[in-house]
């Protein structure tokens, strides 16, 4: 008989693919509370919302009107959940954070019960796209730490949008023990030139990137995509759950607000890793890769990584 694991075997996830009205935080909060009533009926254990879930993504200077302290956003989200009659749950959502006058594109992981809410983890987006249609670093500061954190479902990491586009970020999270990667995202769709594809190129590229991360490291990936058009730029939704073998369990449509449901069999993580032990191999070899003097890495503990 194999030993019994302490972690539960299953995790019931709901992704709320939101379509916020640009900049209308209170209205979007009310609509989220309404959607929570429907979500709560499914009795999920983890509910995930996208990047900029209650404001929209392309805010330019309006980000300073709309950014909130993490504690305030946490309170609002928890209240919306309680108001919807939901039981104890973990909530994840992306928002624009005002930390005493420094602004971040952040994601928060909350544990909410009937009586209290607790911020389990706050992640500040590290990779701020600032090219082409994107202009994040003009308005926001970079996060400097990729934290992993323990939950009752095992260790997790939050990666906001482009964070997950760099394979090294999911790699670091996995090496630090994350078993589930949660990716709140807002991706403006593009790429219609390939006849017969039936899907925007940008959606395909995202899915392939997430599948690669899941398969290589044996992790679940939960991707929550914002939807709706913002000044002609259509956010591609496509919220999805990918299992540790890289299989897409579910993928939402691109242009509709919706609820995605999935029951994650957490035992799959160990099985996938036993079957394809790339993470173990990497952990063994990584020190040699990182000690390469030709790599442009900071040496010593005083550098950027600890800020």
């Amino acid at each position, binding site marked *: 008989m194999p030993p019994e694991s302490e972690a539960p075997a299953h995790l019931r996830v709901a992704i709320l693919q939101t379509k916020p009205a*640009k900049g209308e935080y209170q209205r979007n909060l009310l609509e989220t509370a309404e959607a929570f009533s429907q979500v709560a009926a499914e009795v999920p254990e983890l509910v995930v919302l996208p990047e900029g879930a209650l404001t*929209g993504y392309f805010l330019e*200077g309006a980000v300073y009107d709309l950014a909130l302290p993490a504690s305030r956003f946490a309170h609002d989200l928890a209240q919306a959940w309680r108001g919807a009659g939901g039981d104890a749950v973990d909530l994840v959502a992306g928002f624009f954070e005002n930390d005493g006058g420094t602004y971040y594109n952040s994601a928060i992981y909350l544990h909410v019960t009937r009586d209290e809410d607790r911020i389990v983890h706050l992640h500040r987006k590290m990779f701020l796209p600032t090219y082409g249609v994107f202009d994040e670093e003009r308005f926001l500061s970079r996060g400097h730490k990729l934290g992993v954190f323990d939950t009752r479902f095992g260790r997790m990491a939050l990666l906001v949008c482009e964070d997950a586009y760099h394979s090294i970020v999911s790699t670091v999270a996995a090496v630090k023990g994350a078993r589930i990667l949660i990716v709140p995202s807002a991706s403006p*769709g593009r790429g219609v030139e390939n006849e017969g*594809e039936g899907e925007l190129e940008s959606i395909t590229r995202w899915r392939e990137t997430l599948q690669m991360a899941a398969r290589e490291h044996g992790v679940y990936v939960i991707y929550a995509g914002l939807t709706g058009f913002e000044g002609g730029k*259509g956010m591609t939704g496509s919220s999805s759950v990918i299992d540790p073998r890289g299989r897409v369990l579910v993928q939402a449509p691109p*242009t509709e607000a919706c609820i995605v449901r999935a029951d994650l069999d957490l035992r799959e993580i160990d099985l996938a890793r036993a079957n394809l032990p790339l993470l173990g191999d990497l952990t063994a070899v990584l020190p040699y890769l990182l000690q390469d003097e030709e790599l442009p890495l900071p040496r010593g503990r005083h550098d950027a990584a600890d800020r």
Partner: protein
Amino acid sequence: MLPIVEPAAPSPAPPGIDAALTTEWLVAFLRDELIERRGIPRALIGLSGGVDSAVTAYLCVRALGAQNVRAIRMPYKTSHPSSLADAQLVIDALGIPSTTIDISPAVDGYLQFEPDADARRRGNVMARVRMVVLFDQSAKLVALPIGTGNKTERLLGYFTWHADDTPPVNPIGDLFKSQVWALARYLGVPHRLIEKAPTADLEADQTDEADLGISYARADAVLARLLLGYSDEQLAEHGFSADEIALVRRRVDATHWKRHLPTTAMLSNTAINEFYLRPVDY
């Protein structure tokens, strides 16, 4: 002998399009933009008898329903009669309500004082009068004017500034002309409109491609690569002549101003769209 495997040589093809996917995307865009964001579920389209406005009308009907799409034909006395007839083909095929307003008295009311105006000036006056009519009809009908300018003409500057480019919502402005034709075939636009030579119909027997000095297929193929940053040398390797490359590059470089709002002198730390930055949908 072993077989040799290698990539295909670069071809000077214009960009392709997944027409079904694009239609789905643009229909979602129009619904979102008109119904949800602006709360105006009706569209107004100036139908010229050409393929761009026809495709726009077909997309709007898919998005909003035929009863919510109003066509308006705005002929001038020198417009080719077939333009009016071709626009009617679209109106009949879609079953949409329509209005026809002859812009000749309005155009001539001004041009009588400018008898020496050349064809270019006269064409610009016509285009601008059409915009006056379109926006006034928009206010009368509570229907949003929809833009019909494609990416090729926007990039080549082949349009009248503050006329063709004024409608607040444009579904096809990021599609090259070649892609618009492909979309037209998919949507079932009457063949006549797809097959005929494109024309602004501002002068007798005018065609776009004669005006531009290059076919749309070639211009689109050059433009698609030029926008990706290809050098003249790379473009030549893709099969384009020095003349084609120079013509397209010159037109794009000479018309950046046409793709912007007016240049405003900046005097403060709060200059609009320079320091004070708010998105269009905020």
